[in-house]
């Protein structure tokens, strides 16, 4: 099962490697990991997408909680939540293909944010599955480069993760 674990962690040097090191040392999977400071400069928010049996996920959350720098965490995939990922994708856009790529980008609510006579950079946000679908829709030989931010997410409703 895929899980999205949101972590509030002290914004200190080495905090990221404590989390990353924990995953590698104990053999847990990381599908993606994002981290950035929050509105409180002393805290970073990290989102780890991982997978495993219920027992493994339980261990992952407990082991993360044991890290001294981890202030709080929540498995947001256990509740109603919103997840988003940002993708920047550079595609070859020549002659007749240019129109078609714009149409596809529109369908996926993508924005074209850079244009040259032979290429576009398209920005798409959404759930991982939507981004996967967009990549699959494009002709493979058109793709020059794909950059994805990894998933980040937030709970629906009033409840939030804060100190």
């Amino acid at each position, binding site marked *: 099962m895929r899980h999205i674990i949101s972590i509030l962690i002290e914004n200190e040097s080495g905090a990221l490697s404590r989390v990353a090191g924990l995953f590698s040392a104990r053999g847990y999977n990381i599908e993606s990991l994002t981290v950035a400071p929050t509105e409180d400069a002393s805290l970073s928010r990290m989102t780890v997408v991982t997978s495993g049996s219920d027992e493994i996920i*339980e261990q992952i959350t407990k082991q993360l909680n*044991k890290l*001294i720098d981890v202030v709080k965490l929540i498995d947001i995939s256990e509740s109603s939540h919103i997840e988003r990922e940002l993708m920047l994708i550079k595609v070859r856009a020549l002659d007749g293909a240019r129109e078609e790529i714009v149409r596809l980008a529109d369908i996926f609510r993508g924005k074209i944010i850079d244009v040259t006579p032979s290429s576009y950079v398209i920005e798409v946000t959404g759930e991982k599955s939507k981004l996967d679908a967009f990549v699959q829709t494009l002709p493979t030989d058109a793709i020059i480069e794909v950059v994805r931010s990894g998933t980040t997410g937030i709970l629906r409703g009033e409840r939030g993760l804060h100190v």
Partner: protein
Amino acid sequence: MDLSGAEIVVQCLKDEGVEYIFGYPGGAVLHIYDALFKQDDVKHILVRHEQGATHAADGYARSTGKPGVVLVTSGPGATNAVTGIATAYMDSIPLVVLTGQVPLPVIGSDAFQEADIVGITRPCVKHNFLVKDVTKLAETIKKAFYIATTGRPGPVLVDIPKDITDPRIKVPYEYPRSVSIRSYNPHLKGHRWQIKKAADLLLSARRPMIYSGGGVILGNAAEQLTELTRLLNFPITNTLMGLGGYPATDRQFVGMLGMHGTYEANMAMHDCDVLLAVGARFDDRVTGKIKEFCPGAKIIHIDIDPASISKTVRVDIPIVGEVGGVLADLIEVLRASERQQDRDALSAWWDQIDRWRSMECLRYDRNSTLIKPQFVVEQLYEATGGKAYVTSDVGQHQMWAAQFYHFDYPRRWINSGGLGTMGFGLPAAIGVKLAHPEAEVACITGEASIQMCIQELATALQYRTPIKIVNLNNGYMGMVRQWQEFSYESRYSHSYLETIPDFVKLAEAYGHVGLRIEKPAEVRPALEEALRLKDRTVFLDFQTDPTENVYPMIEAGKAHHEMRLAPGVAAERELA
């Protein structure tokens, strides 16, 4: 008061009430060593290798419950300390390790004696810090002590760049009286309702078992555990780390469990219907084949670390909290309960346990003309009245010490259980002796392990820490040889030590007394003589039977009821 960083380090140790620090100087810590030189409150013990410093501090910590403190230099000083830090981490021992670091401006430049010790130790410390600002130094050291000693204890490393300790830069000093960390709340009281449920289950048990571990020792909960066990009249087993948590000479104690545990302990584990696990972590050496672990049991697990709960074995009633407090609450609930125990079932269970016990699974050949290692440990037990502090290294001798030295008190059995670090015993014994100068301290070791930290014999002389080194010398890395005999058709690949030093001469060269003992009849007199030499470290080199194996044994991948018994014991079971 304005102090330099170096003075702050020393003043913090004083304010923390630190008696001893174990260390080795070097470039990056010279300012600190200079500050140490100018005072007498904190006594520095100069080891001969940084691994020895961590083990000695560890032995001090295990035997006192106070944190052990280490001071080493950057680079190789720090990396040499890593094995000792990992040893303490695996057994949850409170250590504060201060490491020197190259000056802040050159960190990352591959400077002389630079190592990223914060990065290197990250997976084997409870927490670590790099101090980047001298005004944060005192607070950081306070945090290190606080984190190391609270909750589930563990080693904490503080990496201090040399420029932070510059004697010319003085800053106002005040040692924080207390410290709070928003992300760390270690004081836990067990959940009342869970304790109630546990009490009901315990009272309903027909074939109960208590299995307790190092958490009882670390949590100073031996008294509560003993009271609970007697109140319920349940059989109890200890893990290797938990020995001394319940008096080993008491009738309710069925011996250690696990790979080299007793037959009765392991069989009772296999057949029990209610298991109370206290401060134990279901380690693989204890559980054997995990799928067949306590197959018919409901399990209650008391532990301070939530991550220990259901890590390898699913438990039915978890109770997260400080072991002593939880046990006291549990006793109270049990005393108040109106529920009656099934006394008939319990008495039948004890009959069964006594039948298992009557096999005397730890028997060995007492008529041998060779010195049996078990006999040496038994004689040591008798000669010291069971009251010595016993450290050990790792291997066969460690198991024999655990099986044959019956620990009635907590904190007397000092060994590397989790990491299994050869070389631990001698430096640990020095730390123990410093903490308990009046007590008898013995290091049970083997000729392979002892050579891993043999240089600490010099430390033992310098600080006059008279310990008795009981070397069970069988010429092999005994446990390796045993596994090779059982699992590799006796292909003794590199487990034979061909050039064993003359330990008598070696001991004498280091200024100690050395004795070689070759016959069973000489064992007791030699031990008595060593004990008579109160102010001398004595190296007793026992030439033991090289073929002796540790029995019983659960071989890797087998379950509790599939024990391999000593040949003589097994033959009798066949007949019965």
